[in-house]
């Protein structure tokens, strides 16, 4: 096997991440200093980002048959690293004021990021599975942080341990399906690399004799992928896990973990050319439509902000599928590789999703950081879990704008971006997807997209309304019965906001607005990358 200096250089980000996680782990063993560990993690991520910067614009290079480093992987790895850095900062603020040992969290964060980067660059099922499992196994433990909450008395709040175990079991099932699907595909084609499988699937031999194997394999892999993307009917874990996990981990789960999987299927999709089996198109159409509807419906009157955002992320995965379908339909019709507006739409949308979700969960995380400032008298129970509970009940957001104008404004921007309101990047992403759908004439699916966006608008705006409502006595009498949070007896939780975290959120909100007003450069960059991919492939 040919492994020279260029290959080493290309692999450098992965090596750097690995080294960083080992260094952070060793450091934790000797110095239990939260700030130091967090800083080291940031440093490791920063060095990796610098390594990536080094190779931006390089020609595509295959490192072993498993991974390919090219502009696509560099671009998306950079986003993953930025998100990981944000999550590191959020975690630092979040766990600083909480009891328990949280230094190991950063090791897991680094390994999870490593898994994501491996996924983004993989062109082979082996590396795909490897990356996915590195990511997932790290996440099982991450979700269960902080360990002290074993002692919590309040049964109503979700426990991280419970969430971790749920995630472990269900993700295990999904991984099993994925592995089985790969085995079936291997049985059908004798290949495990994306391009090899693609070539074999086009040959008539596979078409005729082993159709069932291939089809079964494809569906199983789709199921495994759908689990990660929280698509219906593999979405059930999402609200419980998102809710139970500590807020910064939820941010990671919703952004990096999903993002890596989306990039991976985008890459696999670039290999797919020509005919897509009609049955697959039908299945994916169904999943997309149901995901968009069910995700938004479930979020409709949800009174827990983390759960609401979890449901909303289900529907966002459905939106992305619309663009994938547009590409599948277009390439089936023209018997060529999927290219043009559909792939651009996918790439742009997932970046917009990453930014928006990171900001939304980031705000929840920042609001949950810091010590409790005002504790209102509550009717039931003591103040037991006020210190550890996340600020995620709808009542915590009541009139937030008048108490925390900056955070409320940034949150409102993120919510509007999720809803796809103009002047935010979310609008541009949705517009892109819509344009892709129109190009491929997916009218029914677009109708579902519009209807579900309409439903979605309700709960986003409901939250915005709750945040901007005037405090005490400022009732305007409009739609009280629908809009008011259900459990008004629970006390609102208000904490001190760390200054640094606030600026971080303002920065993210600003990026959402800036890219919503002037997305041209980002679009041009994505198009460049995809053109380069097309030439190379």
């Amino acid at each position, binding site marked *: 096997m040919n492994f020279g200096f260029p290959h080493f250089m290309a692999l450098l980000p992965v090596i750097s991440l690995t080294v960083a996680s080992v260094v952070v782990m060793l450091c934790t063993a000797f110095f239990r200093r939260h700030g130091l560990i967090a800083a080291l993690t940031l440093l490791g991520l920063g060095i990796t980002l610098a390594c990536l910067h080094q190779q931006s614009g390089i020609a595509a290079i295959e490192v072993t048959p498993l991974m390919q480093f090219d502009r696509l992987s560099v671009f998306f790895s950079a986003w993953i690293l930025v998100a990981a850095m944000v999550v590191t900062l959020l975690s630092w603020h979040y766990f600083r004021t909480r009891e328990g040992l949280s230094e190991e969290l950063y090791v897991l964060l680094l390994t999870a990021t490593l898994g994501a980067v491996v996924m983004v660059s993989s062109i082979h099922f082996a590396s795909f599975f490897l990356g996915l499992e590195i990511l997932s196994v790290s996440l099982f433990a991450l979700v269960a942080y902080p360990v002290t909450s074993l002692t919590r008395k309040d049964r109503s709040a979700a426990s991280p341990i419970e969430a971790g175990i749920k995630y472990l079991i269900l993700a295990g099932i*999904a991984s099993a399906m994925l592995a089985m699907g790969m085995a079936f595909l291997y049985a059908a084609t004798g290949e495990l690399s994306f391009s090899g499988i693609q070539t074999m699937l086009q040959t008539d031999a596979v078409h005729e004799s082993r159709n069932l194997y291939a089809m079964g394999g494809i569906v199983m892999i789709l199921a495994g992928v759908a689990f990660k993307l929280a698509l219906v009917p593999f979405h*059930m874990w999402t609200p419980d896990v998102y809710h139970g996990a500590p807020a910064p981990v939820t941010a990671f789960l919703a952004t990096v973990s999903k993002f890596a999987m989306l990039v991976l299927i985008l890459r696999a999709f670039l290999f797919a050319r020509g005919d897509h089996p009609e*049955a697959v198109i039908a299945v994916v159409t169904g999943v997309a439509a149901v995901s968009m509807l069910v995700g938004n419906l*479930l979020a409709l009157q949800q009174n827990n902000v983390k759960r609401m955002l979890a449901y909303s992320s289900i529907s966002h995965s459905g939106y992305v599928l619309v663009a994938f379908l547009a590409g599948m339909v277009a390439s089936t019709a023209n018997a060529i590789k999927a290219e043009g507006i559909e792939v651009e739409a996918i790439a742009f949308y997932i970046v917009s999703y990453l930014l928006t979700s990171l900001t939304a969960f980031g705000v929840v995380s920042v609001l949950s950081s810091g010590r409790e400032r005002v504790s209102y008298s509550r009717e039931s129970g003591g103040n037991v879990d006020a210190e550890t509970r996340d600020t995620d009940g709808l009542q915590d957001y009541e009139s937030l704008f008048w108490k925390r104008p900056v955070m409320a404004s940034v949150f409102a921007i993120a919510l509007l971006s999720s809803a796809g309101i103009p002047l935010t990047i979310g609008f541009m992403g949705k517009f*892109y997807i819509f344009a892709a759908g129109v190009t491929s004439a997916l009218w029914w699916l677009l109708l579902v997209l519009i209807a579900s966006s309409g439903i979605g608008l309700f709960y986003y705006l409901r939250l915005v309304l709750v945040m901007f409502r005037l405090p005490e006595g400022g009732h305007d009498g409009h739609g009280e019965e629908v809009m008011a949070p259900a459990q008004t007896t629970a006390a609102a939780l208000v904490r001190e906001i760390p200054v640094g975290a606030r600026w971080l959120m303002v920065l993210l909100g600003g990026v959402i607005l800036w890219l919503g007003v002037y997305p041209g450069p980002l679009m041009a960059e994505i198009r460049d990358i995809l053109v380069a991919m097309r030439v190379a492939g």
Partner: protein
Amino acid sequence: MLNAIACVTLLPLFGFFVLTLLRPPERVAAWIGCGTVAAAAAILFTITIGFLQNPPAEGHAVVHYGTWVGIGSFQPGFSAWVDMLTLTMLCIITGVGFLIHVYSAGYMVRDEGFARYFSYLNLFIAAMTVLVMADNLLLLFMGWEGVGLCSYLLIGFWYRDPANGAAARKAFIVTRVGDTAMIIGFFMLYLQFSTIDIAEILRRSHEAIYFNQSLYTVVALLLLGGAVGKSAQLPLQTWLPDAMAGPTPVSALIHAATMVTAGVYLIARTHPLFMQAPLAQHAVGWVGLLTLLIAGASALVQVDIKRILAYSTISQIGYMFLGLGVGAWSASIFHLMTHAFFKALLFLSAGTVIFCLHHKQDITEMGGLRKLMPLTFASFVIGCGSLASLPLITSGFYSKDEILIGAWNSGEMAFFWGGVVGALITAVYSFRLVFVVFFGAPKTHPDHAPTLNMQVPLVLLGILSVMGGAIHLRLDGVLPIGSHEVSTGGHGMISALLIVLPLVGVALAWWLYRRGITWTKTTGAPAAMLFFRRGWAFDALYDAVLVHPWVWLATVNRSDVVDSGYTAVARLTQWLYQQASITQTGSVRWYAGVMIFGFTLILSAAVFL
């Protein structure tokens, strides 16, 4: 150097942001407001001189700054289209705009919304420059709506008086009617030519494969709809007199000199379309003619000094439309420029009168101000002289002359004679105003004098109003040769007529004034006079035909029939939510079961379908 043209927009925009976010004290706000516009104007004049000295080969240049979004064939760019028409408009906007900024610093002194005022004014300059520099329909529309927004904000600037808010809403809604027509026209253009680049659309409109006479006519009429809304022409002229509720410098800048001429600019910019749709171009001429006569008659009998000027603005823009209608393209733009000078001068002078007479606007309470306010008197006479187009010494004479010669050459005699009658009316009402306000016995004494920063703009605008006629606009590459530049017979006679006519008008006004006929009575006046004063009762007409039936419909349908459908949808959604949320049990067994069940379903669908 041409690349710096973005500064003309960005500097005032920067000023807007600073003023909005920081709300600095008066003196600082005035410096920021005037300073940014002054810098923009200075940059622009440098660019214009450079452009004139060595013009680009094609007569225009495009400065591309970036692409806003690029989705498929829809690629709107941030690009500036620079030719002499754009530069002329920009010079008017920033030049007159700067003078009015300076004047405002004196006029608005000790107003609690001082910084807010300047921020709006800066935003207006930014939006207006976007409008005239836009090289694609989207950017044009953005500027178009931006100035509409600023107009709304500034008419309702003193928002505590509900009447001002009502006037602002009226202006916004009435112009919206025109804007709707315009944007439908834009969509049709995009459908036909599949580009939003204006120059490209105009170029393709000449090509045989795109040619479609009826479509061009419809589009041109829709664009005319947008133009009449913005430029307060028949039948959407009703908002402008009410728009005088805003501060007087705003009336000078937005509702006289710049924004209301956007319609003229739009038609001049898209003139190839209008030239291929003779019916629509003819309609432009008729709109102009009728408007100038109707508004002129109303101006004769108003008693509010600002309303007189408002009607006269409508009437003068009518002349510009008339010029466009008869193909005297550059004459219209020329009149646009001179009108900007003298109408701004008139409004600022009127503002000075109002300012010094503690906010009195009724001309019946004025009189004899000639001796008390000599500078204001001088500038008012210059302005009115130019408006009445007194021969040889005023700029208005030269521009109106060109339009009427164009009308004569077009062969449509109604246009010419209508314009002549309008010119006579103009002379009469403008000097009626001068005589009533500045002659006779003083009725109200001014309690304070205009400040220096109010006087300087008056002097400069006065000079421009006199000398403006000598400016030679070099629009020949941009606009086609106008009908006024073709020589046919009979010009000597027309010139003689146009020289004598204003003098007759002034004499008539003097004679009427001496006889005590000033049409200022509010009670016991003839019905016709009241009819004219109410702007030919257009407001009452629209109320009866549009507003009342609509309100009636809304009252009848109080328990909205259509709404019940939506309520049903909401109920259904809520029900679906309840059904869906049952599935979220929280138990892992159930979740795993659903996963397996769903997987089986999908697999069988994929295999057996």
